[in-house]
């Protein structure tokens, strides 16, 4: 049996200004058998996407590639550009993370799927259309004949991803490369997409290499796994063995950082992923590794293959890994009410005529009521479109609403002017996208000082000192204040957003998907930080998320939102152990969870 894909000693460098190149991926080896489903795992910056793109030879201009990439025995590195065009699509199909930008918005899906087929196989337009119909059926588009002439925007996110998969499968490739195929989709939909890919490769005996940072997806769907860290392979092998006993300390740390349903404390991986220029000489994980010894810095360790998976570590872990999954033990606490929300209803107006006049749309939030206790964390869970972000914005007074939001007994929409502004300051917000939450033209120091400036009554020196203090409290160095937002990582940016919120001395912080744009290890650090800060500053949180695991880790109580209504609300432990509403049960079932701990 020959491998569908065999990568031998692949090294990739990319140009970085001034004629210099930096090495992105080093000495990468991988073998994928027909019908095998392999996950390429790593955090952003690990080189996993570059490795996948190299197979299609879709690297940025100026990339220097050495080594061999054998696609069914043929070396892609040496192939001509004309030959590559044949191979792309015909031998290798590719699915991207964002299907909307990968599909042409001006052409129907039948035309796009048909084109992918005709380019390689020839045939008439009618044959191509028939093929498109067949493929749409195969990827599970309901009533495919009726949807052939629809445009990409007429499909939902999950359906678009299915169309993208149909395009990739048009010529029955032997290898499918999927770059984060389920990232950014709701958990229920993400699970369906991964299941579809799994079914398709079984039916077609097609090798699948999917790139992801989400270990729970890997455990559920992959047969084998390959973990990258800072451009080097650290561990690879059968997924079952990997999850039963990871042998590389980085793998273990990564598994410990994943939020799961019912977990007491997430593990932090200390430090940050090194920049490509600043990678350690020996084992690249050694500077952050709890098990590292002096000789770890002496050259990159060779793979140890004794038992289970192969790991590039001088001191691979054996049985008895840290029991990072502790049973859920969240005491039910009584809190003094701080924020009362009563019959909150938000309706957005539709687009009106040229002089006023607009039609009413159904409310995005309908008669939602709850109280938030002092020091409590209330989780709001729901799919996109369930109204959970609208709820957050209404509490923040960013949108108009009917009903009442009372902070310490005072209805916020009854206040005017300075009183209203002062009350609003008590409720702060941390947004999902760390890049969007800072003005790119202000320095970090200015961003954090903004609430202080707006409040007034502080000298510049006093503000500077306060900024340094806030930075320290979120675990950042004071020197970062002079940097611009473009020069910080996503995790740092989110800490800065928290520091800015704290600068306003809030009582409540609305966290709108605060970690969903971050890598697993960064997410773990941030969640732990927010827990500590809540305690230290006597904060209450409203945590909005589609990730049940994250919410259950943080929240004392959870409200489940569906179509603008609260369908269920209960203490975290009760809600998870005995969900009453069918929708809650579906969400919990779809929640990414590493089952290893329950075995």
């Amino acid at each position: 049996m020959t491998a569908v894909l065999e990568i031998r000693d692949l090294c990739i460098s990319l140009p970085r200004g001034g004629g210099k190149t930096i090495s992105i991926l080093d000495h990468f080896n991988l073998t994928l058998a027909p019908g095998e489903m392999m996950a390429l795992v790593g955090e952003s910056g690990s080189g996993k996407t570059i490795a996948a793109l190299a197979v299609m030879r879709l690297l940025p201009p100026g990339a220097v590639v050495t080594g061999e990439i054998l696609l069914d025995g043929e070396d892609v590195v040496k192939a001509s550009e004309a030959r590559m065009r044949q191979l792309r699509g015909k031998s290798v199909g590719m699915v991207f993370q964002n299907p909307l930008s990968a599909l042409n918005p001006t052409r129907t899906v039948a035309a796009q799927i048909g084109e992918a087929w005709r380019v390689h196989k020839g045939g008439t337009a009618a044959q191509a259309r028939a093929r498109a119909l067949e493929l749409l059926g195969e990827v599970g588009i309901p009533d495919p004949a009726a949807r052939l002439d629809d445009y990409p925007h007429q499909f939902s996110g999950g359906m678009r991803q299915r169309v993208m998969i149909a395009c990739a499968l048009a010529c029955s490739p032997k290898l499918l490369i999927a770059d984060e195929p389920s990232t950014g989709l709701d958990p229920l939909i993400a699970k369906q997409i991964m299941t579809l890919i799994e079914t398709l490769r079984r039916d077609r005996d097609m090798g699948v290499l999917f790139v992801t940072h989400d270990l729970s997806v890997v455990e559920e769907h992959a047969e084998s796994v390959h973990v990258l860290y800072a451009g080097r392979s650290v561990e690879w092998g059968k997924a079952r063995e990997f999850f039963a006993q990871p042998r590389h300390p980085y793998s273990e740390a990564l598994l410990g950082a994943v939020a799961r349903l019912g977990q007491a404390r997430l593990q932090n991986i200390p430090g940050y992923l090194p920049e490509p220029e600043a990678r350690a000489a020996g084992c690249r994980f050694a500077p952050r590794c709890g098990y590292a010894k002096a000789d770890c810095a002496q050259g990159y360790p060779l793979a140890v293959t004794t038992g289970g998976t192969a790991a590039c570590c001088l001191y691979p872990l054996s049985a008895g890994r840290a029991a990072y999954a502790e049973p859920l033990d969240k005491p039910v606490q009584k809190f003094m009410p701080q924020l009362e929300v009563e019959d909150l209803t938000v309706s957005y107006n539709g687009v009106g005529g040229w002089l006023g006049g607009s039609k009413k749309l159904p409310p995005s939030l309908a008669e939602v009521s709850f109280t938030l206790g002092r020091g409590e964390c209330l989780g709001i869970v729901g799919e996109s479109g369930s109204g959970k972000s609208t709820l957050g914005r209404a509490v923040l007074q960013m949108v108009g609403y009917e009903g009442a939001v009372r902070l310490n007994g005072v209805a916020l929409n009854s206040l005017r002017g300075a009183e209203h502004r002062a009350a609003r300051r008590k409720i702060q917000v941390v947004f999902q996208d760390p890049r969007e939450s800072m003005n790119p033209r202000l320095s970090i120091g200015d961003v954090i000082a903004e609430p202080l400036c707006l409040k007034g009554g502080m000298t510049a020196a006093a503000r500077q000192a306060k900024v340094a203090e806030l930075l320290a409290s979120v675990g950042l160095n004071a020197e970062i204040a002079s940097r611009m937002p473009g020069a910080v990582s996503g995790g740092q940016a989110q800490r800065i957003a928290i520091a800015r919120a704290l600068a306003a001395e809030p009582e409540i912080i609305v966290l709108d998907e605060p970690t969903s744009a971050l890598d697993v290890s960064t997410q773990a650090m941030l969640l732990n930080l927010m827990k500590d800060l809540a305690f230290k500053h006597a904060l209450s949180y409203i945590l909005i998320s589609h990730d049940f695991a994250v919410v259950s880790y943080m929240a004392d109580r959870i409200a489940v939102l569906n179509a603008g209504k609260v369908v269920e609300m209960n203490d975290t432990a009760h809600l998870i152990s005995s969900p009453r509403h069918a929708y809650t049960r579906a969400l919990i079932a779809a929640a990414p969870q590493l089952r290893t701990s329950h075995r």
Partner: protein
Amino acid sequence: MSNTIAASPSKLLGRALSHGTLSTGLILGGLILFVGFVAPFIYHVDPFAIHPDHALEAPSLAFPFGTDELGRDNLALVLSGGLATLIVAIPAAILSFVIGVAYGLISGLGPGWLDKLLMRVLDVFLALPSLIVLLFFASLVPQTNFNLVLLLGFIAWPSLARLVRNEVLAQRGRDFVLAAEQSGAGRIYIARVHLLRIIAPILVVNGTFMVGDSILAISALSFLGLGVQPPQESWGSLLEEALDIVALNPWWLILPPGLLVFGSLLAASLTGQGLLRLWGDKR
């Protein structure tokens, strides 16, 4: 073995061109400003002195740009005409710019009813052909420099106002603006600290275009006799006078003012495009 995938040549060319565009625009713009503001004080020749025995002579050592039909030194005329053109065109562009930015900010940040009202007023301005409006008002008031600046300034702002208003609407819902509002920021603070900084590149680029447009507008008015008034000449009026005697082929009278108006437009356009691409690259 190694394989270098070279950068596509069109991309490299595009980058080089963008910076080439910018530098060409800036050099050309600097040249125009030099001609208008510095050269008249170096070339000390009275533009209104008449040399009857040298009327309508082609360029020579004595008269580098030749003479007109009255026997006036054409180079001196072009230089003083440049100063007369620019001291109207540049303040007018600045006035237009300020009105456009202010109108756009008020419309974009104000309450919904005000935005609707201001935008409908804007539609009226945009619907009227600006040259006709300009001619109408120019015929009502005496053409002093001050009046011309006001006139041109009040004509050219609407398209910038719409652009600013649309940008403000697009930017004011961004997370960092919402976060500032949550901490008690008012509209003026939002405009000053956040919006103006974010849209600064767009403003600079469009401001540059406006200077070019303004030079063209005052030249057109002067050409039609409603701009800078005699005895003062401007590029537009010099062109008009040369065209009166075009049958005699006085190319030395037509080319300098014509090329200077053309060059101003080109300089503004190249500088604007260059800046646009330079900032586009960074984003």
